[in-house]
């Protein structure tokens, strides 16, 4: 029963919003344009019963190939009535990654989109609360981008012992 509902929803989406369908390991993904996402999500929620947003996050494909788009944003939807899963995915380019927010359709997208802004630098138009959520408020940079360094500390051997020790002013032991 859930298979037919899912199939009907996928058919309607690909006709109305020009979505490309991809099926991998039994999961269906719809690729849409960024401006059509709120309308598509609202249609899925109202007509086809996909009333639950499970997950929303982004991916970074730096350095990207021209047709791939640097950022991909995905929303994982679930239907509590028919127990069917669907994923919506868009491509955003590097220069100005913005897309309209889905907070009006699914209220729990609020914090997920804040996390996407914090970690990737993707802005969401009309978001009610656009500020950082996981990093400190005055942090610069977007950590989960691929060109942001991991920021690891090197292993302390004898040749860099003093250099690393300077960063630990309170260490009382072997100096």
């Amino acid at each position: 029963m859930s298979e037919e509902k899912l199939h009907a929803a996928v058919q309607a989406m690909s006709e109305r919003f020009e979505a490309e369908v991809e099926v991998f390991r039994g999961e269906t993904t719809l690729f849409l344009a960024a401006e059509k996402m709120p309308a598509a999500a609202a249609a899925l929620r109202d007509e086809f019963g996909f009333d639950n947003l499970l997950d929303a996050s982004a991916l970074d494909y730096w350095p990207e190939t021209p047709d791939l788009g640097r950022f991909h944003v995905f929303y994982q939807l679930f239907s509590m009535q028919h127990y069917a899963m669907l994923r919506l995915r868009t491509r955003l380019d590097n220069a100005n990654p913005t897309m309209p927010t889905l907070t009006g359709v699914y209220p729990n997208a609020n914090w997920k989109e804040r996390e996407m802004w914090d970690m990737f630098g993707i802005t969401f138009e009309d978001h009610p609360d656009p500020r950082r959520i996981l990093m400190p408020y005055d942090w610069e940079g977007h950590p989960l981008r691929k060109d942001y360094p991991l920021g690891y500390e090197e292993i302390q051997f004898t040749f860099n012992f003093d250099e690393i020790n300077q960063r630990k002013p309170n260490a009382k032991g072997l100096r």
Partner: protein
Amino acid sequence: MLDYREPNEIPEEFRHLVSERALRGETMLLNMGPQHPSTHGVLRLLLELDGEIIVNCIPDIGFLHTGIEKNMEAKRYQQAEVMTDRIDYMNNAMNNLVYCLALEKLTELDVPLRAQGIRVIVAELTRLSSHLLWLGTSGLDLGAMSIFMYAFRERELILDMLEMISGQRMMTTYIRPGGLWRDVPVEFEDTLRNFIKIMPGRIAEYRGLLEKNPIFRDRTISIGVINEEECIRWGITGPILRATGRAYDLRKVRPYSGYEQYDFEIPTHDGGDIFGRYFVRVNEMLQSVRILEQALDKLPYGPVRSTNRKYVPPPRAELGVSMEALIHHFKLWTEGFKPPVGSVYTAVEGSHGELGVFMESNGSPKPMRVHFNTPSFINLQMLPLLTRGRFVADVVGIIASIDIVLGDCDR
């Protein structure tokens, strides 16, 4: 960070969230800071108070953000699994389980039946340990100190069993891609059977301590109420959804790792309040004991790890006699395995809600993107809904009943 701030000065970042009355000074802004005995970790709450009534409550998270997702992209798949234990540190094995399930779905790896049975046993043991810790600490928050000691007494039994099978009390990393790390030792079955025998009696003890207590009932019944439609709108899963009356459990809806063969019920309660969530969790503990017993009875004999040498290292005894085993070992240790290109989403029923993993691979030995869909991040969003109009003293009980783990929330 200043050590002294002018009174009534609201920092820039919160100005658009507090109401007009706060800016005029009519309501007070109280900071329930990151270090607080009852916030279950480093959570900061900005409470806007009108006397004792809460007008608004703004959660501020990020004090435990560890950058796990970025760190996992710099390690190979097998190495990255070690970091998954520390995401939701109360039910460690479930994080391992969901990561391995996602990897097995991506690579289409087979898992032997004995491994599936033992995975269920370890997952239910960690669910029990998480619920016991929740019971102890939420009792402590509401004022019942002795339940903390009782709950930890049982938790030590569970941690002893986990130490017996994997050597580590909490961060076991026992569940690996393709099965388990190694088979359980001989003493495990008797210890588990003993545990299953005594546990229902102990759970009855906890209920006797709490349920008829008038203070507990006054502090929990009809407080922090949420109904089912709001839960689904806000994406809440887990015991909170089950306490509103909806019997939704991922172990029944999208069963994984052999849960179809076990017979258990989904406890629900239709109050939607703190007492309902307590009731659901305590009954879940009883059902977990039932599943443990069935899993132990139905456990088949056999191997505990897949034999697909492209992903699973060969046993060390084989390295001396087989050239292919040596080559596989070498490739897995120096380069790692390369899953096919694609993305999957897998979820399990964690003890706090639906714990999911979105994994995307681009064919290299390091994951391209691993995103954890953690229940505490989603469940904490509805805290303002639950606390508006309530007293300050209820906030502690409400946070305890949502059962958030900040490592899960901030990753």
